[in-house]
Structure formats: structure tokens, C-alpha cells
């Protein structure tokens, strides 16, 4: 893939993350293989945009996000935030610089029941970043706390309560308030609504959109639920087994998907309308193991448009087929 100029806000280049597998034993632990969780992912996000990363479980969406934040250090690859190589900063051990960088990027975790400390009050949870980063003077911390609570639609009296007193939707609001405490520019939301009910889901999605307009934030939105992705994302990348197979503007991707996997994925979403009978493409089998990914195109064992030799032998590259629509499929390039 050609290197783009650093006009992009976040640029991920050929990111690879392999988790090693060791043989059993105490004395002789040998590396016997690797889980190819993320295998050469490149994309870029413009400032103020929402970029969606979709795919089934185990395709490497979450690992990509965690690696971008250096929660897992990458095997290889670069990530640039506003033109700065972030791994250089993370590896420099310069604590001040790392904290500065961390303030720019924040993460909303999938499960609001697991990501809040049950022994801290909401005020403690939201004000902890103030103590760590020290960007708000002591006397102003409570004002800022109430401001943040208001921003995510909670009341002032919620501040002294504990997480167990809240419902799932409210907890996710607390998580969002905590990330906003450091005024981040990039928010990585990892399935923020997956564990919530439909009506609550709509509230959180609307909140995320409002905050983006108000605070001009950039989102990396990770989800397996394509209908919410369609709703809030400007650009979408579809991942399969550690690779991006298709990437385009949301409208373009949903109206004219080209990769057979994207087509199958879109056709298998149940549509809440009894009269729309989609011709469903049922994929045979399941996602293969990322320890030994298939040779050639990784999707070839389940693909219905397989051309014999090339697909099993050569791995297709992600190619721009025009209109900023990127596809990695031999059948797509004519």
C-alpha cells in the first residue's frame, strides 16, 4: 500500500500483532507457533470522522484497537497520530511524553459491568484522571466533574454513588465521562453498546454522536453489529482473520459491497421488516483458526466466488478500485 502524506489524523501502517504459543513444560518452553491476530492492517482516519471496524468475533478488531493504544505492544508496524510515530514515544520511556500521548487517546471498553472499579464512587472514578494527568487544578476538579456528568446526561447526585447502583446504560455513560475527563482527541469505542438493550443502545449512540459534534472528537468505532455501524460511521473497514478485506465510505460499502465476505455478512443481517426478504448468502463452515490461516486468500475455504488457482495460491492485496473503495479479492480486480 502506498504511503499517504501525513494529512490524516490517525494513520495505521501495516500493523502486525502475533501472540506466541509456547509448548507446555517448565524448563524447556519453546515457541511452537503464533496466533496471527492482526496481520498487516493499514488504514487512516480523518479528524472529526468516525471510522468503523467490523468483523466477526476473533477477526482481530479488538487487538487492532488495543495495539493502537499500545495496551499490547505490536509485533511490527507503525501508527502515526497527527504525524507523530506513537511507538517511538511509547518505547522512549519518557513518562511525561507518554502521559501526554495517553491523554490524546482514550478507550471505552465493551463491558460496562467489568470496566468500573466496584469500590470507587463515580466521583473517584471520573476524577482519577485529573490526579494522574494533573491538568485540572484541585479547586476546579468538582466543577469539572459536574460538567462531565451533565455532558453525558447524569445528575450531580450520582457522583457519590457506587457503580452497582447503576444500570448498564448509565454505567456506559460513566465510562464515557471518565474518558472525556482527559479531553481526548481520539476515542476508541470497543463495542460500546453490545451489552445494552435496544432502547438504551439508541441513547448511547445518540450521546456519542452529540459529543462528537460538540467536542470535535475522532472515533474509532469497533462493532460486529453492522446496523449500528451504518448508523454512526463515515468510513468502514471489514476485517476477516486479521486482515482488512474491504474498506470504503459507509454509504458506498453498504450499498455496493464487492468482497464476497462483505456481501455475505451484509446479507445475513436480519432486517426488522417482514416484507423485505433478502436473498441470504449462507457461508459454509466457520472462521478458520488464526494459528494456521489458509494459504492464499484467507477467505477461500468459505468463498462462493472462488477462482481456482489464484485464490488458493496468492494472497490478494488491498487495492483501490476507485472512489476510495479498497478491496482485497482476486475476483474484484478485472
Amino acid at each position, binding site marked *: 500500500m502506498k504511503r499517504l502524506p501525513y494529512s490524516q489524523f490517525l494513520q495505521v501502517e501495516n500493523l502486525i500483532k502475533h501472540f506466541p504459543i509456547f509448548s507446555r513444560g517448565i524448563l524447556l518452553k519453546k515457541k511452537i507457533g503464533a496466533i496471527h491476530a492482526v496481520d498487516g492492517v493499514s488504514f487512516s482516519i480523518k479528524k472529526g470522522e468516525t471510522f468503523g471496524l467490523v468483523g*466477526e*468475533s476473533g477477526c482481530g478488531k479488538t487487538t487492532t484497537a488495543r495495539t493502537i493504544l499500545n495496551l499490547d505492544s505490536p509485533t511490527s508496524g507503525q501508527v502515526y497520530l497527527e504525524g507523530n510515530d506513537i511507538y517511538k514515544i511509547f518505547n522512549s520511556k519518557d513518562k511525561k511524553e507518554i502521559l501526554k500521548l495517553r491523554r490524546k487517546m482514550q478507550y471505552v471498553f465493551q463491558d460496562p459491568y467489568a470496566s468500573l472499579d466496584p469500590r470507587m464512587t463515580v466521583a473517584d472514578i471520573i476524577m482519577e484522571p485529573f490526579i494522574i494527568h494533573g491538568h485540572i487544578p484541585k479547586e476546579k476538579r468538582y466543577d469539572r466533574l459536574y460538567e462531565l456528568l451533565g455532558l453525558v446526561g447524569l445528575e450531580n447526585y450520582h457522583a457519590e454513588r457506587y457503580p452497582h447502583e447503576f*444500570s448498564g*446504560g*448509565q454505567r456506559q455513560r460513566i465510562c464515557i465521562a471518565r474518558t472525556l475527563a482527559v479531553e481526548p482527541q481520539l476515542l476508541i469505542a470497543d463495542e460500546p453498546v453490545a451489552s445494552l*438493550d*435496544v*432502547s*438504551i*443502545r*439508541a*441513547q448511547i*449512540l*445518540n450521546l456519542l*454522536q452529540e459529543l462528537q459534534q460538540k467536542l470535535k472528537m475522532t472515533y474509532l468505532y469497533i462493532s*460486529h453489529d*453492522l*446496523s*449500528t455501524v*451504518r*448508523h454512526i460511521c463515515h468510513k468502514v473497514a471489514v476485517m476477516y482473520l486479521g486482515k482488512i478485506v474491504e474498506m470504503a465510505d459507509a*454509504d458506498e460499502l*453498504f450499498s455496493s459491497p464487492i468482497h464476497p465476505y462483505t456481501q*455475505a*455478512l*451484509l*446479507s*445475513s*443481517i*436480519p*432486517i*426488522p*421488516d*417482514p*416484507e*423485505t426478504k433478502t436473498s*441470504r448468502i*449462507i*457461508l459454509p*463452515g*466457520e*472462521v478458520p483458526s488464526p494459528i494456521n490461516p489458509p494459504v492464499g486468500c484467507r477467505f477461500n475455504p468459505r468463498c462462493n466466488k472462488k477462482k481456482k488457482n489464484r485464490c488458493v495460491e496468492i494472497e490478494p492485496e488491498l487495492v483501490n478500485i476507485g472512489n476510495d473503495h479498497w478491496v482485497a479479492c482476486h475476483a474484484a480486480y478485472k
Partner: protein
Amino acid sequence: MVKKILEIENLKTYFYTWAGIVKAVDGVDIDVNEGETLGLVGESGSGKSVTALSIINIVPSPGKIVEGKIIYKGRNLLEKNENDLQKIRGKEISYIFQDPATSLNPVFSIADQLMEVIRRHQNVTKTEALQKAIELFRLVEIPDPEIKIWNYPHQLSGGMKQRMAVARALSCEPKLLLADEPTTNLDVTIQAQILQLMKSLKKKMGMSMVLITHDMGVVADVADRITVLYAGRVCETADTKTIFYKPKHPYTIALLTAVPSLALRRDKLAVIPGTIPNLIEPPSGCRFHPRCEYAKSICAEKIPSLEEIEPKHFVACHRALEIDIKSPLGVEKTAL
């Protein structure tokens, strides 16, 4: 004349917790016709699962069925003793649990677990039971059934486990299948596989099904009729098309508008304000009134009864005939 295979009348299942009595199901009326799929929809805490558990009387403690009738083929299941019920569970009525990972026993092989059900309800030898189990595996389209059947649950993927759960539920050719969120934990492509499988098997065996889900997309695809539950009560019951195109209960309409759509991108999703009420002290009158935008004073005072406003269209709302709101889907159709 369609025959009813299951009729639930005024079912009340309460949980006696230290904090108070949780009225999880509070007067639910449901009926299932022969050969039909009934979709039971609602948000979490609306009483969908408890209703299904009550049907075969396996409500976990401290829950208790307090009142009501569950009439299966003319017999009231609540009057049966445990022995009789065991003959019905698994054979006549079977259950697919929400989470395949926890509903399978980790210390027995799949073959053991399938053969246990078969040998309990059918008079067969061990080898015959094994043959049947392998047949079932073939039916649910698991590759290499002769080898895979000796696996333990942890050796199978989520989709495989759910296929196995479907196989176990269908092993004695039940007349009624209760499927509690059978695809919720699965990926969309696997969900599509399982739903298609269940649809084709249902047709093949001619059974009836109660499908519990919170996904409006799944019911639109699979169900013939839909019952919408809210806070332990039925809001609306009608055939699938009526629920989607001519819904009358404000909650049904709100539920439909809150779903993000693939077909049309709206700027803002409609929101149902507030959250599901606490079922220890549910709101007076209509349980939806604190969140309902059409609520009037009567809604807080009187509990609405389930009325048949059109043939086969039941709604529990005081203002169902006064308010006239179009279905969000109806609007979408013309916009497209």
C-alpha cells in the same frame, strides 16, 4: 380451524427475594397455534425467559408460579406432578437455552449427553441411541459426525455448541420447541446458518416454536406471530406484519423506532426515555406510562386489559384507538 397447542392464561411468576417480591411475570396471556412460530420480544427484564421457564415449570428458586393456567394439548401442566412433567420435558416440549456454553455439561462427551435424552424417552438400546445421535448430528449439519460426537463441549466452537443444543432439543421430535435467544451469542453469519437450520427443521418435523429474542430483525424473519412483553405484561399480540406495519401500542412503536436501520440512515435514533421499571414496585396502572409520550391521567390509574381491537390483534393500551401513529417502517417504505 387452527388448533391451539399451548394456551397460557393469566400466568404470574414471582421471585421472593430479600429485597421484596419481584413480579417478573404478572398476568401474561399467550397462545401458540399448531405448526406456528410465536416470537416473544421485549427488552431484558421484561419476563420473556421466565415465561418460557414457567411453561415447563423449571423456574429457579426463589421463583414461584403463583397463579395461572398453562394448558398444553388440553391438559393443565401446572396440575401435573414432577413425574409426569419429566415425561413431557424433552419429549413433548423441549428447550434451547440462551448460552450453549453453560447449558452443556463439561464433564460428559457430546455423545453421552445426546444419548441420555434419547434413552430416557425412547425404548432403545445403547447402540441404537448412538446411531440416532449420529443421525441428529448429520441433521444439524455438523461435519464428520462419527468423530465429532465423542468430543467434549470445550472442543467445539460456539456455533457448533449451539448446533449440538439444537440437536439435543430435537432428539425426541418434540411438538413444541422453546428457543430462548438461540442466536444471541453468535456471529451474524453463524446466526444466519442456525436460523435457517431451525426454520427448515421446523417445517420438516411440523412442530410449533416459541422464539424468545430481543432482536426485531430475527423475529421479522422467523416468526408468524409476535407477542411484545414489557415489565412482565403483554403489550401487544398480532401477526408479524401487523406488528411491524400497523402497531398500536406505543411501546411496540418505540421499540421499532429505536432499532438502527440498514436501509435508511436517520440522523438521530428515537429514544425511549428512562429505563425499565423496578419490578418490586412496578408503576401503577399501565406499566409503560412513565416512559410513554401519549400517557394521560387514566394510564397511571387503571391497568389496561388486553383487548381485541381488530380480529387477532390484541393490544393492552387505554389509548390504542385514539392515538394514530404510523409505523416507522411504513414511513420508510415510501421514502425509499
